[in-house]
């Protein structure tokens, strides 16, 4: 938000005969704001765009979710109907919620722990090897559109790597349609998502481990810390709490937002909606069926789930090492 609007909004109450105490408080605020004018000016461009493309859309989405809106007619208020339809009538949405939560419940914690464990092991290596291993683990998450590799690996004919090896080793006699068989779809998506998930959180952990005060380890050894596990629990984890919180936010949010992997590997829509997630359901109603009110309700549910899960995890992580 720009500095100008803030100042104007707050100027008025100061002049309109409020009780003396609040007037002086406003006056102090005002003086403070005038003195810091440059701060607001520096922040204005970013905050304006942030408000326009992040804050405003969230608010709009909540409003639209209570309407029937098809982009052609003016939105019509229909109360909680979209939500009741979502939870009571839309079986596919329930599948989507189930898939998303199952998916997040596995990839979230596993990728988070993997990020930490591998950062921790890599941190013990020498500088050269450390740089190489960091690249090996981080590269998948930045290599962009590499889904096609996984399409080849799990391709349904015998030239697919998975089928080829299993046939050669004699485990199966004929190729499996991996991405077209309901029971295999979700596990494969989880595997691929895990492969992709050592991203920003992983880097934050690598960096965090390098900043842990080395003298703490020496002091710990004197104080009777016996092995690396005790060292990890009593020294490393508590000193890294801020990075752990940051990593949790990143990993959890990405694990709840999964859609690209699903669309690229399992197709859209997937066989019997076996790979439908909240986000793919949102894409379905928002960009194909143009039921914007309904799609906004899905977006709002997703927003609540993401924010809620993150806040709960933050609470829990504050207890680490206490």
């Amino acid at each position, binding site marked *: 938000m720009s500095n100008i609007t803030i100042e104007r909004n707050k100027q008025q109450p100061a002049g309109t005969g409020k009780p003396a105490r609040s007037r002086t408080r406003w006056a102090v605020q005002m003086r403070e*704001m005038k003195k810091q004018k*440059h701060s*607001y000016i*520096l*922040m204005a*461009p*970013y*905050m304006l765009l*942030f408000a*326009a*493309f*992040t804050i405003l*859309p969230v608010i*709009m*989405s909540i409003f*639209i979710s209570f309407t029937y809106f098809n982009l052609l007619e003016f939105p019509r208020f229909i109360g909680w109907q979209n939500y009741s339809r979502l939870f009571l009538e839309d079986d596919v949405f329930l599948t989507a919620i189930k898939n998303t939560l199952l998916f997040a419940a596995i990839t979230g914690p596993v990728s988070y722990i993997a990020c930490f*464990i*591998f950062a921790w*092991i*890599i941190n*013990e290596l020498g500088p050269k090897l450390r*740089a190489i291993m*960091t*690249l090996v683990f981080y*590269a998948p998450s*930045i*290599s*962009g*559109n*590499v889904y*096609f*590799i996984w399409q080849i*690996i799990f391709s349904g004919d015998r*030239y697919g790597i998975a089928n*080829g*090896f299993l*046939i050669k080793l004699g485990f199966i006699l004929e190729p499996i349609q991996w991405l077209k068989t309901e029971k295999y779809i979700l596990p494969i998506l989880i595997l691929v998502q895990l*492969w992709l998930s*050592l991203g*920003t959180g992983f*880097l934050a952990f*690598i*960096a965090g481990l*390098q900043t842990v005060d080395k003298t703490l380890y020496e002091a710990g050894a004197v104080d009777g*810390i*016996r092995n*690396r596990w*005790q*060292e990890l629990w009593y020294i490393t984890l508590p000193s890294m709490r*801020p990075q752990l919180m*940051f990593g949790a*936010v990143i990993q959890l*949010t990405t694990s*709840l937002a999964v859609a690209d992997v699903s669309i690229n590997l399992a197709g859209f829509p997937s066989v019997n909606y076996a790979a439908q997630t909240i986000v793919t359901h949102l894409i379905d109603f928002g960009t194909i069926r143009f039921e914007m009110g309904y799609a906004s309700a899905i*977006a709002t549910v997703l*927003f609540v789930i*993401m*924010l809620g899960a993150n806040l709960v995890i*933050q609470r829990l992580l*504050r207890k680490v090492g206490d």
Partner: protein
Amino acid sequence: MNSILKMRKKRVNRSFMGSFSLFVLLAIVGAFMALPLVYAINSAFKPLDEIFLFPPTLFVRNPTLTNFVDLMTLLGQSWVPFSRYIFNTFFITGMGVVGHVILASAAAYPLAKHVFPGKALMFQTVVLSLMFTGAVTSIPNYMIMSWLGLIDTYWAVIVPAFAYPLGLYLMKQFMEQLPDSLLEAAKIDGASEYRIFWQVVMPNVKPAWLTLVILLFQLLWGTDGNGFIYSEQLKTLHYASGQIIQGGIARAGVGAAVALILMSVPITLFVLSQSRIIETMATSGMKD
């Protein structure tokens, strides 16, 4: 002497079996991480008959550049000159990166170093926005773009990238550790806040803005237009390569070649800037 002592102390808490099993774990999972990429790299150099070999092979036997030559021929035939896709992606990525680094740094500086009313609220909002993704805001965003008349322009992708929250967050955390004395000295010399930001702060947060460059580069390099771009001549490299990869069996080799070229760019950038990025991430932590 001192360092030897330290080494020895470190070894006290390290059992051989523990180290051994951890490194075995690292090697196994490392192989799982690396193999698909190794396979992709090898595929790009495989002749077509080797791509469809049974049983499938990981490594190429008779490396060839045919796929890259075929790619060149294919590019020569595309309806929109291929250089146009390249220009589009470079333009979007370049503008987005420069704009974001400047705007996010300008906003991060007061958040990190000044005290003013509304500061906590603004920063909390940015942190909160790290907790949900673009999917949540996609529908209203389309409407806002349409009001602003930005649909089917580069700007629909570029402008929202300016306000990418993760960049501001990392930059602010990094700036917090700049010594106040540095800023005080500049202030005593009579520099305005804007000059301090541009001539004192910015040169001192080089690792952080390199990180922002990489982050935004990755975000925009892989963009397919986010559903805002319809005109063929405005579409991105990522979109065009997707068309090639989807060409099916006949294009399998060419697809691998184009994927290799596309992914080598962000990976190279990361290799070149790895140490700077790690330096920035060290300050990424969330304080209570």
